[in-house]
């Protein structure tokens, strides 16, 4: 008991209030539920009309791709991996911040995560969905995609478990499933709140079904909390392992610029970097539209900006060390690849990457910029651009200029490549809009534990 008191005292004396405006339990419920219960705002219809059209275009283009073949893309030999793989790596990376917030920050007792974890986890799910589509349609013959799974078949052969491409199937599949389970378990108490507030029969039935009959009993919370802790524990290594496995798609091959041991940590850091940029972008829009300034405070945004600053430095370090090792290894192909990245055909992409990922985030050293909403919105968007170009640089420059000049070739995307990239954003944003309209965007049951009313020893 005494340690509880000390914890709460420490919490209140040194930490900024995690939720401002001093809400009560009922206030938290009302504020968050209102988003999903009030009349649908006009802006939401306009937004989903746009993103929904893009999502439809996305699926239309996929149908066209399947009916026609991979030739509709700009890929060729030697550049056999174009936008599809760039988009795949980009979207998987976006997901990582959500998992870091929900799992690692939970284990580290970073209580500020409670306001942002729910929508960050949703972002993770939708990003992995977008990511998963790209390698699936890249296989060309989608109708035999089940060959990737170890299913007995009349040919008697099995998938090759020694290939990183198959590791990917399992890593990303597991990542999606675990993220979904983690998100859903966190949602159960809040879905029960929606059930109990339901005014219409449909809401009562739907949320009654989804909340599985949750009654908030302590005999249930006991198992629930341990399940949540375990899910956080097993999701934590996933933050590190998933993008490491993705990076082995590249690093296990022998291509100059890909065949390096720095890839797993370099990819993981980049993923967290880009993911936080996306979380900040979405958080700024969310809090503005739904007036959540008391829940997603400047304090939250500033912390995330600091994480971006740190990961930006780590990404910058990786860029530098790649160059150094290319020279230090004495391997002429490696050295050529990196000089070519900075000065060759695709140098513009390289310098977009360096400016957006390393130079511009340095502005976050200034507290004024770190706490300015317009500045962080612009910077976070630029980071996302930069991180997309990082994958472009990795995929395209190495493939287009490998060993023998006779096998070099250039790559340029077609309208279908661009359409699928834009369409994937449409799908992502459509799912996100649906989520914020129908589900609790902030974890109410968790936020209630960090407001002053929740302190057990306050009254006695």
């Amino acid at each position, binding site marked *: *008991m005494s340690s*509880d008191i000390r914890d709460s005292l420490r919490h209140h004396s040194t930490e900024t209030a995690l939720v401002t405006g001093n809400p*009560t339990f*009922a206030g938290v*419920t009302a504020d968050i539920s209102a988003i999903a219960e009030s009349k649908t705002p006009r802006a939401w219809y306009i937004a989903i009309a746009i993103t929904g059209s893009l999502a439809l275009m996305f699926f239309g283009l996929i149908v066209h791709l399947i009916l026609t073949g991979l030739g509709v893309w700009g890929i060729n030999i030697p550049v056999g991996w174009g936008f599809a793989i760039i988009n795949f790596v980009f979207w998987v990376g976006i997901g990582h911040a959500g998992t870091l917030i929900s799992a690692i920050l939970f284990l580290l007792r970073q209580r500020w995560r409670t306001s942002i974890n729910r929508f960050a986890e949703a972002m993770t799910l939708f990003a992995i969905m977008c990511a998963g589509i790209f390698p699936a349609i890249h296989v060309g013959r989608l109708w035999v995609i089940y060959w990737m799974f*170890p299913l007995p078949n009349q040919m*008697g*052969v*099995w998938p090759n*478990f*020694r290939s*990183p491409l*198959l590791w990917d199937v*399992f*890593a990303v599949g*597991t990542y999606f*499933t*675990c993220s979904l*389970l983690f998100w*859903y*378990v966190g949602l159960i*108490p809040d879905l*029960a709140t929606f059930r*109990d*507030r339901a005014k219409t029969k449909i809401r009562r039935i739907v949320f*009654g079904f989804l909340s*599985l*009959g*949750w*009654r*908030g*009993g*302590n*005999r*249930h*919370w*006991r*198992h*629930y*909390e*341990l*399940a949540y802790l*375990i899910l956080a524990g*097993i999701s934590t*290594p*996933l933050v590190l*392992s998933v993008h490491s496995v993705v990076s082995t798609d590249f690093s296990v091959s022998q291509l100059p610029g890909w065949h390096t041991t720095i890839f797993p940590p370099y990819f993981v850091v980049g993923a967290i970097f880009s993911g936080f940029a996306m979380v900040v972008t979405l958080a700024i829009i969310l809090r503005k539209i739904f007036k959540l300034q008391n829940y997603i405070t400047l304090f939250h945004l500033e912390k995330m900006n600091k994480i971006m600053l740190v990961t930006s430095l780590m990404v910058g370090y990786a860029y530098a060390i790649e160059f150094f090792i290319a020279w230090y290894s004495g391997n002429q192909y490696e050295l050529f690849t990196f000089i070519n990245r900075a000065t060759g055909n695709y140098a513009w992409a390289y310098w977009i990457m360096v400016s957006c990922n390393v130079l511009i985030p340095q502005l976050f050293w200034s507290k004024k910029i770190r706490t300015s909403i317009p500045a962080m919105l612009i910077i976070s968007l630029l980071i996302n651009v930069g991180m997309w170009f990082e994958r472009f640089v990795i995929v395209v420059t190495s493939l287009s200029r490998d060993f023998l000049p006779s096998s070099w070739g250039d790559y340029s995307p077609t309208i279908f490549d661009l359409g699928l990239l834009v369409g994937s954003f449409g799908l992502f944003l459509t799912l996100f809009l649906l989520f914020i309209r129908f589900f609790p965007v902030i974890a*109410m*049951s*968790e936020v*209630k*534990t960090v407001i002053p*009313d*929740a*302190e*057990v*020893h*306050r*009254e*006695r």
Partner: protein
Amino acid sequence: MDADKQGRASVMLARFENPGALLHAASELHRAGYKKYDCHSPFPIHGLDRAMGLSRSRLGYLVGLFAILGFSGAVLLQWWTHAVDYPTIISGKPYFAYPAYLPVTFALAVLLSAFAAVIGMLVFNGLPRFNHPLFSSDQFRRTTDNAFFIGVESADPLFDIEKTKLLLESLGGSDIEIISERD
């Protein structure tokens, strides 16, 4: 009370003002020797497990078991498909190339543990359960919003309508009601 005469199970529900009062009442009930009662709250309250005399959840053992199953299942799968059923030489690696099998092994261990954690939690809690006597109480709906309840089951050996009610009242419980199981 009619319900009791017919021998049907019922729950006595009392509302408490704040988490502190709930915690205090829970520990007093525990001290009085009650076994079949539960505290309902909008969020987990720390210290309540100890106040109610509950041990740590055993979910971890189940998850550990499934992690081992996932791990060994994945190793067996990869060994059997590559070294026994259809051995092929790929990039000069041995048939049983265990370092290359690690990512899939790890993924499957994590996958099975995650399912064990979630399904185990639901099974331990007897969920999903869409019909429960407590749902017929109007005030109980506030338990997912801002109210704190203790429900004492009539099946508890110490349960006595008058005495239990007095005890709950003396601990600060209000709006006490008896909810009976409906057929």
